[in-house]
C-alpha cells in the first residue's frame, strides 16, 4: 500500500464519518439546521456512511465505489422526489439533502476511481 493509497483510504473514512455525523441534524431545528436529514434519509446516510468507513478501513476500492454509487443514487431519488412532488411529504427531503448526497456521492466515486490509477512524478 502506497502513501497515496493510504491518503485515499483516510479520505474515504473521513467522508463516511461526515455522513454518519450528519445524522445529528435530525435533532437540529431553526437557524442551525444546515442539512435536512429526517425520516428515511437518516437510515440511508448512516448505512452508506458506515459502508464508506468500512471501505476506508479495509482499503476496499469496491466498497468505496459502492458507497459513492449509493449516495449518487440517493441524490437521484431526492431529485425525483423534488421533481414529482416539490416540498414532498413522502420523503422528508429538500434541496439541502440533494446537495449533501451529491457531494458525498461524487467524492467517494472519485476516490474509488483514483485508487487504481498509476501515478507518475508531477512536473
Amino acid at each position, binding site marked *: 500500500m502506497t502513501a*497515496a493509497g493510504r491518503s485515499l483510504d483516510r479520505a474515504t473514512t473521513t467522508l463516511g464519518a461526515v455522513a454518519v455525523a450528519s445524522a445529528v441534524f435530525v435533532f437540529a431545528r431553526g437557524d442551525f439546521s444546515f*442539512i*435536512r436529514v429526517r425520516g428515511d434519509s437518516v437510515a440511508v446516510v448512516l448505512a452508506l456512511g458506515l459502508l464508506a468507513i468500512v471501505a476506508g478501513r479495509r482499503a476496499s476500492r469496491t466498497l468505496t465505489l459502492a458507497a459513492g454509487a449509493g449516495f449518487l443514487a440517493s441524490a437521484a431519488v431526492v431529485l425525483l422526489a423534488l421533481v414529482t412532488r416539490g416540498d414532498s411529504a413522502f420523503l422528508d427531503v429538500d*434541496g439541502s439533502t440533494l*446537495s*449533501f448526497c*451529491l457531494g458525498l456521492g461524487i467524492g467517494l466515486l472519485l476516490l474509488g476511481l483514483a485508487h487504481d490509477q498509476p501515478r507518475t512524478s508531477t512536473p
Partner: protein
Amino acid sequence: MTTESTQADTREIVVSTRLSRGIIAGVRIGLALLWIQNAGWKVPPNFGQGAQPTGLYQFTSYAVEYPVFPPFSWLVEHLILPNFAFFGWMVLLAEASLGAFLLVGLATRFWALVGLAQTMAITLSVLNAPHEWHWSYLLMFMANATVFATAAGRYTGLDGLLRPHWQSSTTPISRLLVRAS
C-alpha cells in the same frame, strides 16, 4: 534576508501551519454549508410563485420592486419572472452543486467563481430590499473570493488528494480539473 526570501516566507505563512490549513478548510466547509442550507428553501415546482408570493419568487421580484441595477431589473422583469419555473430549477441545481462540490473540496476554484456569480445575482436582487443587511452580501463575496484565492480544496479537500493524479494524466478532463482546482 533578501526581498525575495521575505516574500517567499510571507507566502508560505498562509499554508505552512496546521492551524492555517484548518482555517482555510473551515472557511470552505462553512461556505459549503451556507449554500447547502440555502438550497433547502428553494421549493419546486413553483418556487414561491402564486397569489401571495413567497420564497425565491418573492426575493427575485425585489429586483424589480427595489432596483439595484436597472438593466438587471429589466432582465428579471422581462425574462426571469415570466419563465420562473426554469429559473427556479437552475438556481436550485446551481446552489445544490455549489454546496456539494465545496463540501468535499472538488474543483474548488471553479465553484468559488460560480459562487461569486451567484452572489452577484443575489446582491442585485435584494440589496435595496427592506431589512437587508448589506454586509451579508459583501461577506459572501469575500468568502467566495477567499476560497478562490487560496485554492481551498487543496487543504483537507479532494483537490489536494487527486490533483497529483490529474497532473500526471494527459486526458482533457484531468487537465480541466487541474485548472478548476
